[in-house]
């Protein structure tokens, strides 16, 4: 799919959204309140205990903001198409995406692009900027580029996680509960993963590589560790995304009945 076609989709989606402007704005207010509550809880906790695993409030705000921001970027692309797949399959509507001369994956991503994450982006960027101003980070050219790439990589990891849920529905149809479970799991990285037992840390690094979204970049940027391997963090996102897209396409072949 060409970039031009993708933007044409965005234009059309924006116009449908504008048909329900008031809902959109009210929803934004609600979402900002929702995320503000998540920050507030951690702030209240640190107001009492000062540090979690040696992380102070501005550092925690950084950690959470990177999680929310990358989630917002990734989910703008993959949340709606992937979480809608179950219903698309049940109602037979997925067929509509298989009769066009474009790749069904990009077609789905383009037609379900979600502008609803503006609130997420707003609140996370505000807190991210606030936290960076209160943190002692040396911003050289290298650090800035590293940070940009980790944000990009993190967004890809977040998008990829959602693609796996979509793939689940291609193989097994029902994925609603997988989605619900994923939303509970993805909040584990709102805290430094060193708080968890060793097994969970290994899982979050090597099996569900969520720690690469915010924990490892933060370790490097906030000078909490100087392991050279941390420089490889931005590579994980693209690799994971490619893997999940591959799995998704295998799922589509399964749906088409190529296997049996």
């Amino acid at each position: 799919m060409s970039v031009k076609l993708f933007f044409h989709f965005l234009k059309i989606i924006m116009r449908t959204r504008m048909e329900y402007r008031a809902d959109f704005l009210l929803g934004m207010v609600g979402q900002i309140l929702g995320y503000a509550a998540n920050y507030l809880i951690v702030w209240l906790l640190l107001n009492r205990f000062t540090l979690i695993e040696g992380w102070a409030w501005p550092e925690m705000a950084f950690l959470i903001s990177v999680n929310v921001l990358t989630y917002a970027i990734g989910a703008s692309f993959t949340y709606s198409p992937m979480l809608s797949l179950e219903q698309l399959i049940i109602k037979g509507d997925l067929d509509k995406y298989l009769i066009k001369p474009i790749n069904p994956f990009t077609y789905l991503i383009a037609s379900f692009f979600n502008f609803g994450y503006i609130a997420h982006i707003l609140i996370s960027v505000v807190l991210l900027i606030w936290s960076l101003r209160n943190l002692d980070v040396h911003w050289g050219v290298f650090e800035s580029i590293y940070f940009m790439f980790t944000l990009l990589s993190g967004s890809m990891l977040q998008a990829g996680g959602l693609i796996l849920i979509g793939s689940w529905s291609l193989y097994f149809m029902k994925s609603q509960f997988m989605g619900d479970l994923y939303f509970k799991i993805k909040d584990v990285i709102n805290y430094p993963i060193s708080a968890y037992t060793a097994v969970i840390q290994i899982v979050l690094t090597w099996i569900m590589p969520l720690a690469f979204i915010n924990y490892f970049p933060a370790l490097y940027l906030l000078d909490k560790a100087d392991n050279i391997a941390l420089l490889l963090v931005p590579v994980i996102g693209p690799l994971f995304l490619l893997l999940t897209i591959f799995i998704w396409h295998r799922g589509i072949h399964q749906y088409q009945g190529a296997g049996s």
Partner: protein
Amino acid sequence: MAIIQINQLVKEYRTNKRFTGPFGLIKSLLSTEYVNTRAVDGISFSIDSGESVGYLGPNGAGKSTMIKMLTGILVPTAGDIQVDGKIPYRHRKEIARKIGVVFGQRSQLWWDLPVVDSFELHKHIYNISDSDYNSRVQQYIELLDMGSFVNKPVRQLSLGQRMRAEIALALLHNPEILFLDEPTIGLDVIAKHNIRTFLRQVNQETNVAIMLTTHDLKDIEEICDRIIIVNHGKSVFDGDVHHLKREIGGINKQVTIEFHIDPGEIAFPNALLIRDEGVRKKYEFIHHEGEENSLMRSIMSIPNVDQIKDISIEDMSIEEIIHKAFVNLNQNSKIRV
């Protein structure tokens, strides 16, 4: 020239075997046994460019499965399939440019936006040139009489209007074949009639081949020259519509007459009494070529005509036609299974 060619096509669906009994659920969860159901069971036919073919069968006869295989959505289990010389599921994207698809129950239009916006997006997806796009939109607005609603949001359209827009959308990239899956489902009588007329016109004026599935014989009578009847995944009849009527001895009508008081026995020379409940009697009127009015005339000529409370006339259902086709088949080797 054949644009669709299929030979001994089979599609099997594999489903987990379900067990019953006290431990049925656990057994079903753990078992790796499968049940294969054949939705399409060794069907062969070919369709020429410009032809209009109706694919008729009761629910569950494998009609949608056939359309899905022809459009490259599903991969067949066995057999040969070619659309425009290519295997659809292997060359899905190329085939997509050559075909238009309309799903009766699934809209491809953007619900909240005016119809033209969906057309515009379609233009970009298919890379249609400005001049081609403009002239075709103009052509279909006229042909399908859409002038009054192309600028209205889809959610405000009637079902019939929406279906016309769906058909126009599927034709915008000038396909060689138009597939329609149950295009008249849920429409009222007038909208059905309009759609049928439009499709007939589109077929004649643009020379696009049409293949439509339906369980309504009327659709096929008014749109198509050729009819393929399927039942349980097998083709029961393939030929022109007149041929079918001749073979099965015409499409009979079932008439239920309700009287105020029981008139006793009434017999018609051109009908069989199927059920007699006293005040309510059901007949099957045998159709004879060229005697279309004989039914009403027969009814009006009975002595108790002023005692009639209500009359209902039904066409034979598709199941009955298939049944008849099967019966005739045993006596008449010209129809193949």
